[in-house]
């Protein structure tokens, strides 16, 4: 028995050591990265201002684990860059004239695990965070916004009083759920409507097949309210309408049916993994539509890494492209120093934080532990007064027809030669978008 007891006491230690070794080995042994472009000098950080005396907490609620963690990793990288920049420039000035630095507090929404997102929101509400940037997923944002206060100044409304300023969750209409929810996301309805109109006018194509990831809120919603209506309005005839699921691996049936329908255009309302799966199957079956249109969420580095070859020539709308000096600077610095990528989902983090820096000072945030709720309300009210603010592509305006939603400049990009390049700028944004 003594020998057995001794053996069993060694077992957990050995097991733990083996597990740790496995994790270290795996995390350290990443597949070789794609070749990096030649380094471009990133601008030197500004001369440091006097060190801030206090700290304000900014929440970041993103998918940091799970299938969609790539989006969360990018958003958190941009957040760290933006906050480092703000803090290096002296932080923010508080109501009493003292200065505070901004600290990032991360909350993992665990998308698509909705319960985890709600738990994270409740935790953030109980913590002294001033505002939360996020969440990543529309399927998280919808229920999370649902537990926020619906009626300001109503003592009977026990919803959370926590300000959200969303960067990624893009499903239409979510900000209307609560006056505490603001979103800096483009309108996919408008983007796809304009894209299809431009495509029809410039090519004369007439038929379209649509592929939809049916078990994910964003892709299903975008397909139903943006892509299909936009295509139909522009005069396209939908000749095939196929579906698949987020984790599907075989697309032979869907590609085969689309191939039989012989459409001019294929629009894919799906995220990177299944977009790549579909494109690879299409390539195998020799199915080459004249144009492939991507979902906004597939215009990302993730898709490039998954299927760069099959992506060639695909187009899609995006509210971020490195087409001016600032956009390039942010994009390169985040990639070089913060190991993330800037795309239409993560770029708003920078825009949001730069705006919030100004608003924190204008609203007179006190930044004391006993003023958290008042500070959140001050900031919310200040944000509600904003008509327009600076974005990485150009000016972003809060909409008057949909409160707390924005109208932001966007472009159509095409994947060519290993990266996404601008192909078309809608006329209404040609003056607003800065290109240099």
């Amino acid at each position, binding site marked *: 028995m003594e020998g057995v007891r001794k053996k069993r006491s060694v*077992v957990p230690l050995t*097991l733990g050591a*083996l*597990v740790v070794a*496995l*994790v270290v080995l*795996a*995390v*350290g*042994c*990443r*597949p*070789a990265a794609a070749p990096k472009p030649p380094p471009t000098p990133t601008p030197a950080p500004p001369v440091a201002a006097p060190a801030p005396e206090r700290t304000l907490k900014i929440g970041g609620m993103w998918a940091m*684990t*799970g*299938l*969609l*963690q*790539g*989006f*969360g*990793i990018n958003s958190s990288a941009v957040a760290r860059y933006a906050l480092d920049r703000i803090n290096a420039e002296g932080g923010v000035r508080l109501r009493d004239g003292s200065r505070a630095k901004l600290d990032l507090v991360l909350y993992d929404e665990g998308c698509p695990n909705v319960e985890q997102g709600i738990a994270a929101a409740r935790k953030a509400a109980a913590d002294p965070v001033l505002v939360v940037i996020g969440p990543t997923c529309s399927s998280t944002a919808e229920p999370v916004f649902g537990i926020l206060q619906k009626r300001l100044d109503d003592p009977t409304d026990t919803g959370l009083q926590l300000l959200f300023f969303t960067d990624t969750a893009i499903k239409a209409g979510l900000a209307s759920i609560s006056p505490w929810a603001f979103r800096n996301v483009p309108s996919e309805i408008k983007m796809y409507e304009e894209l299809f109109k431009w495509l029809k006018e410039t090519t004369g194509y007439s038929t379209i097949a649509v592929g939809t990831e*049916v078990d994910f809120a964003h892709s299903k919603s975008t397909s139903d309210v943006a892509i299909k209506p936009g295509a139909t309005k522009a005069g396209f005839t939908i000749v095939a309408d*196929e*579906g*698949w*699921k*987020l*984790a599907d*691996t*075989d697309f*032979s*049936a869907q590609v*085969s049916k689309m191939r039989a329908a012989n459409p001019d255009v294929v629009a894919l309302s799906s995220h*990177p*993994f299944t977009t*790549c*799966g579909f494109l*690879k199957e299409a390539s*195998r*079956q*020799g199915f080459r539509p004249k144009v492939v249109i991507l979902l906004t969420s597939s215009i990302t*580095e*993730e*898709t490039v*890494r*998954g*299927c*760069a070859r099959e992506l060639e020539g695909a187009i899609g709308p995006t509210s971020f492209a490195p087409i001016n000096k600032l956009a390039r600077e942010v994009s390169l610095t985040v990639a070089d120093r913060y190991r993330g990528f800037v795309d239409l989902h993560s770029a708003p983090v920078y825009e949001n934080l730069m705006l919030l820096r100004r608003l924190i000072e204008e609203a007179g945030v006190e930044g004391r532990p006993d003023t958290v709720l008042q500070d959140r309300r001050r900031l919310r009210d200040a944000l509600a007064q904003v008509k327009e603010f600076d974005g990485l592509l150009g000016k972003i305006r809060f909409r008057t027809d949909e409160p707390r939603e924005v109208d932001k400049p966007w472009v159509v990009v095409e994947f060519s030669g290993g990266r996404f390049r601008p192909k078309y700028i809608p006329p209404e944004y040609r003056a607003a978008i800065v290109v240099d």
Partner: protein
Amino acid sequence: MWLDLLQQGISGVLVGSTYALIAIGFTMVWGVMRRLNLAYGATALGAAYVGLWFYRLAPDLSPAVLVLAAMASGAVIGLLVAMASFRWLPREYELAPLISTLGGLIIIEEVINLSTRGYPQSFPEVMSRVVFLGPFFFRLDHFAIFGICLLMVAGLYYLLFRTRLGLAIRAVSQQVVAAQLMGINPDRINTLTFLVTGVLAGTAGALAVMAIGTGSAALALTFTIRGLSAAVIGGLGSIPGAIVGGLTLGVIEAETLRIMGIGYRDVFTNLALLLILVFRPQGLLGTRVTH
């Protein structure tokens, strides 16, 4: 319509061969140890990723490097799972290995996520060309995988029925106490079984992900559910049953998709599984347990 259904049936059989590859490992562990290894699908995927790492070490390496590296790493991961989830757990707690292998699945999945930062990874495709014959089309790599399945079954049969190791494995699976009395160390046999199934997992994972073309951590759960379902349909413990189960599952999925659409595919697939469990619980080729 009939042509479509026939094409779907053909595609289903071919896709089902990847399910069969995974199912063989599930069924073999059950056959020897009467335990489910829920980490098996994740082992297959993890081994495929390790294989990919080796493959990317130098340009122009053959995809065979990926498969060989996956086989070796599958053996290592399989051994770790065997130690952590079976060998060191008290035998009297029957549910402990099941829960432990579930933990193993999650750990491997998260290690893949951490090491790739959640990004899908492009895997080399081999023989993935589609061949058109009249109104039908076939993927060559799926044919190859089907052939490899048959080879694996033949290899396993040789191992189990023509070698001393196989004799010991069968002895342990039939009556472990009697086997011990004959001088067979059941712990050693179970460990060797995991080594063998680990090699199978690496092979299955590498070939399956190369056929899919893009790897993602989410495939761990996909492999587990489909592999286990195929093994149950075919008959847990029956190696030929794993192949029949995999092909059957592939056909049910493909035909349901064609007839009912994506919304009902998984409903009817699992309904079929339920019906088999109710009316033929031993599976299509399994042996009914009598008391």
